[in-house]
């Protein structure tokens, strides 16, 4: 395949998206949009009693980078504990995709935000304040910095 603006990995995930679809009995659903280009990503997770992401699926309205970022994000969080899932950054998604053009980095940010939105929904359903997700993220960030 001729080299274009996207890496082979981005193209692979665009052509063969992993975990695309919906989960009917999902207990964590997050939907985010990017006003810059109109992309929308909806993420469904099934988190078990041990706090492990048993299943994850996505639906995305967006460009090649948005679809590939969604697909890669689901691969990176499937089977992980919620705490580990929150450690996932958009930079890690970009790295796993072998890079994105600078103007498309926001697609990976959208994937990270969709995960956060889904986990806020998860905690809300458990009767907890969804702000816990922000607090957990802050802790992770401060740990990384120190």
């Amino acid at each position, binding site marked *: 395949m001729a080299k274009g603006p996207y890496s082979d990995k981005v193209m692979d995930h665009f052509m063969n998206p992993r975990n695309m679809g919906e989960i009917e009995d999902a207990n964590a659903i997050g939907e985010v949009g990017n006003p*810059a*280009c*109109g992309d929308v990503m909806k993420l469904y997770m099934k988190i078990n009693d041990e706090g492990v992401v048993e299943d994850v699926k996505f639906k995305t*309205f*967006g*460009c090649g980078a948005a679809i590939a970022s969604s697909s890669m994000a689901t691969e990176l969080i499937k089977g992980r504990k919620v705490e580990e899932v929150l450690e996932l950054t958009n930079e890690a998604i970009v790295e796993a995709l072998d890079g994105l*053009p600078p103007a498309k*980095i926001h697609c990976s940010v959208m994937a990270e935000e969709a995960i956060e939105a889904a986990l806020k929904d998860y905690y809300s359903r458990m009767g907890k304040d969804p702000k816990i997700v922000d607090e957990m993220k802050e802790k992770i960030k401060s740990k990384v910095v120190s």
Partner: protein
Amino acid sequence: MIYMDNVAGTKPDKRVVEKMLPFISEKYGNPSAHFYPLGRESFEAIEEARGHVAALINAKPDNIIFTSCGTESNNLAIKGVANNPEYKDKKHIIISEIEHYSVQNVALKLTNYGYEVTKLKVDNTGLVNPQDLKKSIRKDTLLVSIMHANPEIGTIQDIEELGKVCKEAGVIFHVDAVASCGHVEVDVEKFQCDLLSIASQNFYGPRGAAALYIRDGVRITPLFDGGFQEKGYRSGSENVAAIVGMGEAARIAKEEMAEYSKKMIKLRQKLWDGLAKMFDFLHFTGHPEKRLPGHVSFWIEYIEGESLLMWYSLKGVCAASGSACSSNILAEDEEELEASHVLTAVGVPNDICAGSLTFSMSKYIEEKDVDYVLEITPGIVNRLCEMSPYFNKK
């Protein structure tokens, strides 16, 4: 590969390439060097090309100035007039909302130098209303610049009517005919225009050659100061091979355009009808009849333009998209991703449209190519709909 992005540039005709080849090898003389045969043959070849280009648009050869591209022609036309001291008291310019960036951005830049710019609205098919133009013209209006055909939505303006309005008002009229020349009739007399831009790459000639028609009496200040090539309007050594190619492309277009455009209109209708039958959530853009011969453009609810474009590409079909995501993909910043101003201008709703797709055919397209596009479209659209959170199966 099926190439259906001809508004971005056509495949050069073989006869054009053959005509050019000697001028990038043995016929390398500088056309300004008239005093020996090697230079003179380059000079004569350029003048022959000028004659062919002039004939294509019903102009006199003396009124044709060769440039490097459509953008340069548009810049030379607009800045050239605006910068001329003869017109220093007129500071109002009129363009339409759907002009190419090489007109829009030039006009925008001139606002930094005291010019006021009126952008005429278009209707939902992309047409400028001549009455709106008439009402917008003021005493200090210097120039009106309207494109003949829009490359994104295919609409062809009632340019003769617009020309008439400008002529009656005594304002300079520039027509960007880059997308239309070589596909439909472009006639500077019928258009009553004073300036007209065309580009070789859009009618089976090479990239790197374009022209600006300048009517007698219109004052233009050149963009570059230098020698006296192109009567001083465009200093710098000529790209002889490209100009020769443009001339040959113009000659061929003049002779054969009527025939191949007829064929393209037939294929356009087949593609249009085929797509119309497939999905009730597919919406065509532009005017249904007043449009470029081989041009079909549309947007699809629930689907983003770049993804659509990428899937057609993976299936071997080259098209164009007006989506934000496909614009300036190699930009350094996401803020540089902008949705098409043309789609916005024709009233395509922002919240449900994230881009259009344009198929623009050439004389090389055959019926089997259109059949193939129609064959692969349902698979591509269904796949992307399935992935879209907006799409609910009924």
